[in-house]
């Protein structure tokens, strides 16, 4: 009984982290779906938005505002705007000029951008951890005498917000005019352009949507962990990319599924093996999936056309 409760606790923790991986993974998978490149700087966008969340919350608290709902809403709004602006500028400066060139060139530009952003924040904000107090403490406890399962309010909020964002995104992609243009671009960018779709705009929009979701993840994870430093983006980006590949890169439901699987796998590793090996397990998983099913769980095998 105790063992199964412990297991349940790990699954809950894993799903919490996994759903934020999914939010970040959307950014990778959408950009990959449309222009076929890995946006390495995406993890840094998430990191920047976490900083913005902290700045807004700390700043408004200093002004004497302590309404949790207002603080979170304001932080979310500002973070989404700033993250979108960064992603938009990154695409303009580093990706658009190399879009027509070879894949290697875009990749190097992206990795350079990621290194640049990380060190830019490092110089501007310092390398030390910055912490803020949890806005929403507490939670439910249930279960047996020996071990009680904790489900914090924050975890429930993370699930709910992730679910909500995903639903909105799914509706946007499948129902709206811009969403249709997005899908058209990912199928055949040249043809979409010929049919009068402003593909440059759609690509910019893809980056902005990815950044907005990363900002949501920044708010949720920032509140959950309560700590931020300039290095969090690198690992979070890698994990989210792994999640995107796991689920099938280019597929949005795949990113969600991949994120959840990865989160649970990590939580279980941390619980039963050692937290030190979390990253080893997720990269091992990535290599295994590439070995046996490179198109991921929900993706389709890529057919190369000549």
């Amino acid at each position, binding site marked *: 009984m105790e063992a199964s409760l412990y297991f349940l606790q790990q699954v809950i923790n894993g799903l919490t982290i996994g759903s934020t991986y999914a939010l970040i993974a959307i950014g990778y998978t959408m950009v990959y779906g449309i222009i076929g490149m890995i946006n390495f700087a995406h993890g840094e966008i998430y990191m920047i938005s976490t900083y913005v969340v902290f700045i807004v919350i700390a700043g408004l608290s*200093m002004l004497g505002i302590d309404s949790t709902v207002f603080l979170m809403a304001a932080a979310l709004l500002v973070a989404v705007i700033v993250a979108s602006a960064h992603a938009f*500028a990154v695409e303009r400066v580093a990706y658009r000029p190399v879009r027509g*060139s070879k894949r290697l060139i875009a990749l190097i530009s992206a*990795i350079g951008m990621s290194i*640049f952003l990380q060190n830019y924040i490092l110089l501007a904000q310092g390398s030390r951890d910055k912490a803020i107090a949890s806005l929403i403490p507490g939670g439910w406890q249930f279960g047996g005498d020996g071990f009680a399962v904790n489900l914090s309010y924050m975890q429930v909020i993370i699930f709910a917000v992730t679910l909500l964002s995903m639903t909105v995104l799914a509706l946007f992609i499948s129902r709206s005019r811009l969403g249709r243009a997005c899908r058209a671009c990912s199928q055949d960018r040249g043809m979409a352009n010929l049919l009068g779709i402003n593909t440059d705009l759609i690509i910019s929009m893809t980056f902005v949507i990815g950044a907005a979701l990363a900002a949501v993840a920044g708010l949720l994870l920032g509140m959950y962990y309560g700590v931020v430093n300039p290095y969090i983006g690198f690992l979070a980006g890698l994990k989210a990319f792994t999640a995107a590949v796991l689920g099938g890169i280019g597929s949005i439901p795949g990113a969600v599924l991949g994120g959840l699987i990865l989160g649970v796998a990590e939580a279980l590793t941390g619980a039963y093996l050692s937290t*030190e090996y979390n*990253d080893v397990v997720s990269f091992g998983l990535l290599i295994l999936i590439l070995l046996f099913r490179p198109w991921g769980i929900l993706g389709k095998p890529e057919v190369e056309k000549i």
Partner: protein
Amino acid sequence: MKGKLLPAFFAAGLTLLLGASVLGVQLQSQGIETVVVVHGPLTWLGLFAAAAVVFAYQLVKDRVQRVRQNARQGSRFRLPAFLENHAQRRLMIALAIGALLMFPFMAERSAVDIATLTLIYVMLGLGLNVVVGLAGLLDLGYVGFYAVGAYTYALLNSYFGFSFWEALPIAGGMTALFGYLLGFPVLRLRGDYLAIVTLGFGEIIRILLNNLTEITGGPNGIARIPEPSLFNLQFARRADEGYTSFHEFFGIAYDPTHKVIYLYILALLFALAVAYIIYRLMRMPIGRAWEALREDDIACRSLGLNPTGVKLSAFTIGASFAGIAGSIFAARQGFISPLSFTFIESAIVLAIVVLGGMGSQLGVVLAAVAMTLLPEIAREFNEYRMLLFGLIMVLMMVWRPQGLLPLKRPQMELKRG
């Protein structure tokens, strides 16, 4: 003009937003509180000035680009003419090697030490150049192979007492094996996956080295790694049982500089050997196949090349060079820990390759020298080093993806028009 005003305002506003959100305010810890500090008027003045510059540039952008295009047609950067001639080039190379061999006997000890480190980076740059520059595979975990090479020597020495010369071929072989095993599953796939998998591999190696404390000493690393010997002559003040020391053999006074100079010459010889091997490989069918595959995957396959095999050979050879460089690094430092093998190292080596010009050996050598010497000369620059490396990668890709000194091949161009 009117049509440009709106985009220009937009760009200026965007600049201001980006700058204000990160540079204008700062999170600071005061005791247990985290507070936001708004920077002084000087910072904001700078931000507004930056926005004004962006605004102005947006207005004249078209004209600037036209001027640049005209300029580009006129002048192109070329190697000096004396390097084009074959015999003269050989002479120059011979002279340069001679000067490099003389260098340690005239320079200070610390300068020689830094030169050794530079040579190690030259080796790494040349090795990664095979993978990234020639074969067009983005390897972001190159430091992983470097670490495997360094730890192979350190571990073989501390557990089994292997000497440098015994461990070196094993280290080279070991890293080649790692490269092969890692490349095998991934190289069948599209190039992007390789980038991320190698990135993960570099991290895994570092995490394992950090956590397998019983074997690798964990974060404490491995200390007292002996320097290489010269035909069994040791460079310590007192040689081990059954060995002779260098200064006793030649009957000169003990001087710790001997060791530094010896390591420098060793590194130089290895760097030259690596450069020569790659130079020859580039002219062999396998080297031609690397470049051909980089240029056109499908054409290569239709000509009967096995893409996976060709890529795998480049990846493995590049990895083994990193392993050799790693062993020399371990011998030079005498102490290694996982801290020496972070992702930053991979990024530095990649920046060297990118700056030097992908595929160009001379360019990579010069870039490696510049990249390692610059932080030594300007200490205050160190803080901004990684920022600049990131910026260099982006700007080089946008403006000169072929690098500062691109590889030139004998070629003929069709006259047009």
